[in-house]
Structure formats: structure tokens, C-alpha cells
């Protein structure tokens, strides 16, 4: 059901080449934000246009694509993006993490460890980790180029002095190979440890902000912290109500109007696979 009116994966070849050049540059300088001439896409800025352009540039007709939003394949925006590529690229799609060669994600890293045959594409709203400390792009670029990251730690210091903890729970800043400070996109900090030393290629696309950055396989990624207040990957302290997993990130679901709630895996594929393998949580039917 490919839409013949458009080029493979929507973008014209010249644009894809331009994006691939940016991706290669990003892979060569891990964590560095490469400016690229983001195109207007037929979906709104802020809804994954960066990720979609990166996916469009790396997809080949033989690829199998998985799209998740908040860890789930069937959230509306994930459905919309998957349908977009089914229409414009005609590639196979899947919900199974292990079967996918390209995974576009918003806000999560799949629980299942990825392999060196896979590419993980992140949708990024604000690529600049220093943005809320310094609103000026010209200044933040200078701070990156001169490696002036003291301010980033001032923010963490302020968190601890006010709350007793680092009060950043998602989009938790990381340092790449001892050089660039990077925003890992708004993934929960629970996912941060998966960023480092990953076998798969990780690509980050910010459409509205016109930036691409990347982590080649097996890159060193360190979450910023203090020696006496070390980084902690946290999650709700429960097993999954459906599959009983204790190692996965959980969504809290309100099930009645008297405060009843349950916790279920945010990664729907991971949860379904465990249930199929016979694991059963206390709330499972």
C-alpha cells in the first residue's frame, strides 16, 4: 500500500543524503549536536519530526521498523508514525523488539537489550542540555565548544541543597566519552544506564531545533552526579501487575475512583512476551 506519489520514505534522496551526512558527523563526534536543515514534515514539530527524518534517512526497503511512544506500540502517536512509514516506505513493521532492525522511540529505551544489527532512533524535543540554564543558543554552543560545564553541576548542586536529592527524574544529563554533555531525550533516568556500552547505534533527531546527535556502539555514557550523591536509576518499587517483572520500568494506572491503582510495564512488547512465556502478575486475568 505504498503511496507512489512520494519518494521512498517520503523525503527526496538529496535531503536524505544531507541527513545521513549529519548522522555520520554525529557518530564521528559522539554527543555533539550537529545542525541540519530540518524539513517540514507532514506531522507537527514536536511530534517526532526529527526522529522521523532520521528514520527516513536510515531506512532501507529490507528493514523492519518498530515505533514506540512511552514504551508502547499502540499509543496514538506511535501508530501514526508507523502508519506513515507503512504508507511512504512500504517497509515491514513489527511490535517485537527482537524482530526490528530500526526502532523509533519517544521517551523510552526497550527493556530487551538491543543488538549490533539494530538502530535506535530517538525523538528529541529540546536537544540542548544547558537550555534551561542558558537560553541563548550562541552562548550554549560556546559552552560546549569550551567544555564549560560548571553550570550543569550548579544545577545539580541546587537540587541537592533544596531537596536532598538530584531532582531530575527524566532527560537526565549525561557526559559522553568524557567530552560532550548530552541530553538523552526525555527518557526516565531508569533508562540512563542502558545508553552506555550499547551494541546498537543510537541516533537522536530534533526536528524543530534542527539538531542531530548520535552514539556509536559501545560508547561510554556517564550520568552526571556527585561522588557523595551518586546517580541512581529509580523506578516504582513494585513488580508488574501483569507479568510480574521486577526489572522493568512501570506505568502507574488508576483503576477506579477510590485511589486504586496498579503498576504495569511501560514496554508493552516486553510485558506481552513475558506473559506469553507464562509469567503472571497479581493483577493478571
Amino acid at each position, binding site marked *: 500500500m505504498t503511496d507512489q506519489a512520494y519518494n521512498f520514505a517520503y523525503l527526496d534522496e538529496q535531503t536524505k543524503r544531507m541527513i545521513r551526512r549529519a548522522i555520520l558527523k554525529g557518530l564521528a563526534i559522539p554527543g555533539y549536536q550537529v545542525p541540519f536543515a530540518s524539513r517540514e514534515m507532514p506531522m507537527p514539530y514536536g511530534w517526532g519530526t526529527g526522529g522521523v527524518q532520521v528514520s527516513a534517512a536510515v531506512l532501507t526497503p529490507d528493514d523492519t521498523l518498530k515505533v514506540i511512544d512511552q514504551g508502547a506500540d499502540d499509543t496514538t502517536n506511535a501508530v501514526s508514525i508507523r502508519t506513515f512509514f507503512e504508507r511512504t516506505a512500504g517497509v515491514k513493521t513489527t511490535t517485537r523488539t527482537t524482530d526490528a532492525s530500526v526502532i523509533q522511540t519517544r521517551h523510552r529505551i526497550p527493556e530487551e537489550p538491543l543488538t549490533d544489527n539494530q538502530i535506535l532512533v530517538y525523538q528529541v524535543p529540546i536537544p540542548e542540555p544547558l537550555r534551561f540554564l542558558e537560553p541563548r543558543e550562541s552562548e550554549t554552543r560556546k559552552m560546549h*565548544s*569550551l*567544555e*564549560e*560545564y*560548571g*553550570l550543569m*553541576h*550548579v544545577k545539580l*548542586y*541546587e537540587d*541537592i*541543597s*533544596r531537596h536532598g536529592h538530584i531532582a531530575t527524574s527524566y532527560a537526565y544529563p549525561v557526559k559522553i566519552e568524557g567530552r560532550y554533555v548530552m541530553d538523552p531525550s526525555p527518557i526516565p533516568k531508569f533508562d540512563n544506564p542502558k545508553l552506555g556500552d550499547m551494541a546498537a547505534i543510537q541516533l537522536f533527531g530534533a526536528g524543530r531545533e534542527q539538531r542531530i546527535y548520535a552514539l556509536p556502539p559501545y560508547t561510554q555514557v556517564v550520568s552526571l*552526579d*556527585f*561522588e*557523595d*550523591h551518586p546517580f541512581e536509576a529509580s523506578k516504582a518499587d513494585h513488580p508488574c501487575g501483569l507479568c510480574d517483572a521486577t526489572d522493568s520500568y512501570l506505568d502507574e494506572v488508576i483503576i477506579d475512583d477510590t485511589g486504586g491503582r496498579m503498576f504495569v510495564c511501560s514496554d508493552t512488547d516486553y510485558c506481552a512476551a513475558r506473559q506469553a512465556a507464562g509469567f503472571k502478575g497479581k493483577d493478571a486475568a
Partner: protein
Amino acid sequence: MRPLLSVQGVAKRYGAHIGCADVSFDLYPGEVMGIVGESGSGKSTLLNCMAGHLAPDAGQVVFDTRAEGPKDTVTMSEPERRMLSRTDWAFVHQHARDGLRMGVSAGGNVGERLMAVGARHYGEIRGKATDWLERVEIDAARIDDRPTTFSGGMQQRLQIARNLVTGPRLVFMDEPTGGLDVSVQARLLDLLRGLVRDMGLSAIIVTHDLAVVRLLADRLMVMKSGRVVEAGLTDQVLDDPQHAYSQLLVSSVLQV
């Protein structure tokens, strides 16, 4: 002994107007140099040229760096210069709000330079910040308060703590007591004198207030229309000014 800072032929023009011209002097370790003159005399332009905030049109500002010895800071790369200004150099602004982060707590303000050079132990950073707040006579209980809640004098003392915490070898001060009440000025001067003596600081202080240099400076330069008209030991210049302009300047203020 090798000079810590050697300024040679520094000049800066603004179009046809001379900011400062042909300024040369040496500053030795542990020495405090005062630069006095009325507003528009070029003393702030000179200070900003030396501190790397302005690019001079001519001349050299040679600093005795820890790693490589004497090096011209005008021609060094920007990363190197910025590195200097957050390690071995400090700059105290006339208005504390130009030198502080008003949205960050006092502790964060003092700790920033430590973190910028790699301190990563929260407890130690906080300990040093507490220590420095006390040294500048700010109640340590105020460590988590923002400078917006501080008085003008406290803000200025916080700015000094923030600058001195990394043990800089050279401190630039631009009218550090300007804009403060007279009684507050006296306390700040007293504090500065103590710090300069205890830490053996080298400093360059720009001021129009002769009382400030009388108390703090070993040597003095008098500037007029962008040029140095007289230089010498502080007491010598103040008690026996040679140049007509210096005489005018000295006679127009009360002796301290």
C-alpha cells in the same frame, strides 16, 4: 623575581576616541596595584583589556602561567583565556549582580568555580562554601538563600567569596566599594585588607576612591584621558603628588 603580570604598550580606541593608550607596568606576586582617575579616564577600559573582557588594539598582557610560564593573554586562544579566568584569575564587579548568579543559592554561587574546575563531591563543595561564607562574614545558615535576599554589602562580600574560593593568583577589582553606603564600605575594605594580607593576593584595583587605594594598594597609577600621568608607591603619590592632575585629585578628597 619574575613579574606575575607584565603589561606592555596596551591601547584601546573607540573610533576616534582614546579608551587608553600606551600603558605599561609590571605587577609582582603579592603586590596590589591601584589605578585611580575620574570617570572617563580609561581606568575601566584598561582593566577590561587586562582581564580579557575587551580586546586591546595594541600591546601585550603577559601573565606568568603555572604550566607554561609567561604568556601573552591577548593572543592566547579563547579556551585558554576562559580557563585562566575561572582558575588563576578572579574579577570582582562593581555591581554584585553582574558577578553573581542571582537565581542560584549563595552556596551554589561560591561552589560554581569549584565545580567548573572539576570538584565532584557535594559535601566538600558545601564545606568549602560554608567556610568561605564565614570568611566574608556571612552567616553560614544563609547558605541556601539566594543573593536576592541579601543586602548590598552582603552581595558584594558573596561576590568576593565566589571569586576567591579557587585561590586565584590575580584578582581584578572594578570599584569594589562603589555603590555601597559609607559604613558598609568601611567594613568591606577592612575585610578585603584582611584577605589580601592573609592570602598574599596579587590584585589590580580600579577605583575613583583614594581611601580605597590608601588602605589596599602598594603602588598607584593615576590615569587621565586614557594615559598614565603618574605612578609610584601609594603613600608617595598620595602625600607628594608630582603631576598637576594628581595634585588636583588628592586635594579634592578628605585625607584618610
